[in-house]
């Protein structure tokens, strides 16, 4: 039972920190606490959260994935090129996700078959994927994609508009953006998979003690392989969402996003040693990063100072976590 309580303390600690941030920013900036800004933050958080969920899978199983920032660029660019070549948009985006999954599969093979350290394998993929994205686009943005390509990133559900007296549309409720819905759906599926299924249990077991898991008959290679495919596929999906939002595919998109994803995971209580972590924690971690960025922006804090603050937050949370476990 002690274990459960510790788990709750961890969750509430992160949640309390999140609420504290919201209260603090609401008092310093009037525009912060509004439905419109909440949607903006959610939209910004989706990419971190989607990548973070993938990172959580990989890290729980004892690995690390540094390639997601590049993979999302490659996937987005491929989807855009396909759409431009006349492939229907949903199919083009499926292609992007598939490309991401493929990159993840290669990462997995490098780790499980070639026995490369995950850090090196995914570092290599990070350079290769970025290089391919730049090569096939000639380092230029792919634009002129048509409105349907922007639907996923810019559309929203339950958007309520009213035409006002002057004949201009007046937004009563901005609706829930599709990316946010996608994030919620994927987070729920991932959480259920990790905590309630055999596969999820095996992922935890491999990260907690790979040798014990192997000697218990768990196919450790397949499990590790799976986590990299999930991470790659989610990177591909993130790429499609991001490019769709801009209605332009940028081969330079997503630089350093892998670090945001890992940070979100770690702030949410995932242990880099493996074996421990939850999707709910990662989502909270993503919001901590997203709200910090948004709130600091609204308070006119420079991007440089923001980096310093977020860096300190990561150090602080992990230090508190370590300190709690050492007792």
């Amino acid at each position, binding site marked *: *039972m002690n*274990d459960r309580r510790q788990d709750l303390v961890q969750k509430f600690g992160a949640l309390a920190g999140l609420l504290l941030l919201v209260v603090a920013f609401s008092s310093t900036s009037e525009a912060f606490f509004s439905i419109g800004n909440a949607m903006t933050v959610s939209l910004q958080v989706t990419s971190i959260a989607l990548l973070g969920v993938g990172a959580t899978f990989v890290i729980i199983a004892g690995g690390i994935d540094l390639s997601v920032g590049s993979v999302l660029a490659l996937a987005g660019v491929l989807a855009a090129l396909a759409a431009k070549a006349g492939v229907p948009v949903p199919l083009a985006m499926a292609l992007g996700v598939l490309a991401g999954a493929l990159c993840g599969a290669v990462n997995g093979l490098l780790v499980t078959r070639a026995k490369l350290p995950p850090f090196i394998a995914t570092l290599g993929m990070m350079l290769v994927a970025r290089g391919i994205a730049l090569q096939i686009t000639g380092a230029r943005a792919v634009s002129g994609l048509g409105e349907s390509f922007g639907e996923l990133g810019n559309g929203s559900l339950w958007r309520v508009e009213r035409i006002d007296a002057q004949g201009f549309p007046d937004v009563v409720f901005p609706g829930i953006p599709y990316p946010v819905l996608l994030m919620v759906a994927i987070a729920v599926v991932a959480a259920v998979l990790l905590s309630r299924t*055999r596969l999820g*249990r*095996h992922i935890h*077991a491999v990260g*907690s*003690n790979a040798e014990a898991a192997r*000697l218990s008959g768990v196919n450790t290679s397949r499990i590790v392989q799976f986590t990299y495919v999930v991470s790659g596929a989610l990177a591909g999906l993130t790429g499609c969402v991001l490019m769709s939002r801009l209605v332009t595919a940028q081969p330079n998109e997503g630089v350093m996003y892998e670090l945001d994803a890992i940070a979100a995971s770690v702030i949410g209580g995932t242990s880099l040693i493996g074996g421990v972590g939850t999707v709910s924690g990662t989502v909270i971690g993503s919001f901590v990063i997203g709200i910090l960025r948004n709130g600091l922006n609204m308070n006119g804090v420079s991007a440089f100072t923001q980096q310093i603050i977020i860096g300190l937050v990561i150090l602080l949370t992990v230090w508190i976590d370590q300190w709690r476990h050492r007792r």
Partner: protein
Amino acid sequence: MPNASLVGVLFSALRTRPLALPPVPADPRSPSDRSAAPALLRLAGIHKAFGGVAALEGVDLEVRAGEVHAVCGENGAGKSTLMKIMSGVYQPDAGSLHCHGKPVRFASTQAAAAHGVVMIHQELNLIPHLTVAENIYLAREPLRGWFIDRRRLRADAQRCLDRLGAAISPEAPVHTLPVAQQQMVEIAKALSIDAGVLIMDEPTSSLTETETRQLFEVVRELRRGGVGIVYISHRLDEMAQIVDRVTVLRDGRQVASGAFADTTVDAIVAQMVGRALDEKFPPRRSVPGTELLLEVRALQRRPAFGPVSFELRRGEILGFAGLMGAGRTEVARAIFGADPRDGGTIRLHGQDLAIRSPIDAIGQGIAYVSEDRKAHGLALEMSVGENITLANLAAVCGPFGFIRFGAEQKTARGYIETLGIRTPGPQQQARLLSGGNQQKVVIAKWLFRQARVIIFDEPTRGIDVGAKVAIYELMDWLAAEGIGVILISSELPEILGLTDRVAVFHAGRIAAVLPTRHTSQEEIMLHASGLGSAHAPRFSRGGLRAAEPATP
């Protein structure tokens, strides 16, 4: 067994003339002369305990100049602890150390080395990618201003190597050398700091016969030069070639000490194993069946072990006895598919099994309870319940692999009750349980998987007596259920108290398979030391007998 003849010859030489070096009056190393020599290192009344468990209780040891002093004892007798105290790794709780008659305290290995006491570890402590010379003078590099004086480094290293007569280039990177030469480098390193006392821990364990002979030549050379050598080895068969004096440890106490010439290997073995069968072994209720369960034929993986052949019946407990490094664990892991094998067949119920991974072995009902619970047995951050179901999770899963938590809880609670696992509940982290209870969790895991053959590797290591008895009872119960049990144990009373037959391992092979009721600790130890074939008849009569298992 190509080794048998050699061992036989060696042994017959030993029996007719137990003294390796006949005391010739003119020999400067004659026993009377040596006893007059000053003690380079003297230990008196050494006590050491770890967490309340005594490892050494009042041990005396004297190392004189120009002698080879063997320290013998079973696994866990306290040899390693004693060596670590001599070389400054541990400090004794009580007792004193004297160097050349003066009391000393070794606060660290550096302090011991400053007094000329150096230990050469079984697993060598060399930096693989540095050269021989760089290793010999590591952290003591001759300097010239701010830079290393490479020329002097090379010359000094060469001098050390020459003293050993070792044909090794000081410029060679250590990882390119065979193990025997790496050992020479270690010895050269010890000589470079003017070691007067050299402690050698199982120096021959990874050497071929030729290399062993070369090593002994070097040891004799060092002895001639006045170095005192403390020699630890399980290979009693080799000792006669170089040992002058011997000290026998048993359960942390010194049981004998004296000139090797005045004793025999028989006597040493008897002193090593004279441990009382004081532990409570439950009476065996189970009777082994006649039906063959597991047949292993010519299983091997060079150079670790093999070829090894044996069989296991339904409801039988087969012991694997032998000294550390004799290949017992390696054989078990190969059967379980945890390590690859070069050749051999494994048959279960008369059917050939193709085992390539633990998944295959588990699928056939073979389970392995590892000797290292923490590293190989349990996922420590996971709960007791999650560990119990880990090997058979599908059994508590519904459609789409969803875990039925109710069923899992019920399963876990069931095993917690049947095996008497002391835990607040299935939710408790496995890390927080005691050693004995952790072991029960591992056993529960395999029971839930419905294993037909269970291999226990040192199942009672590091757990208290009460928990041990519970595990013994459990093994008997498993056998009564018709499960075939293999028990790997270094504790002979355990082997004698629990098993039906004993396979004794020596140097990667099964030296003998003995019926437990008609054997003794001495007989097993002789086979384990590579002396068995010549000795078996003499020891089946005398010595400590196995506790007679209660049979109907």
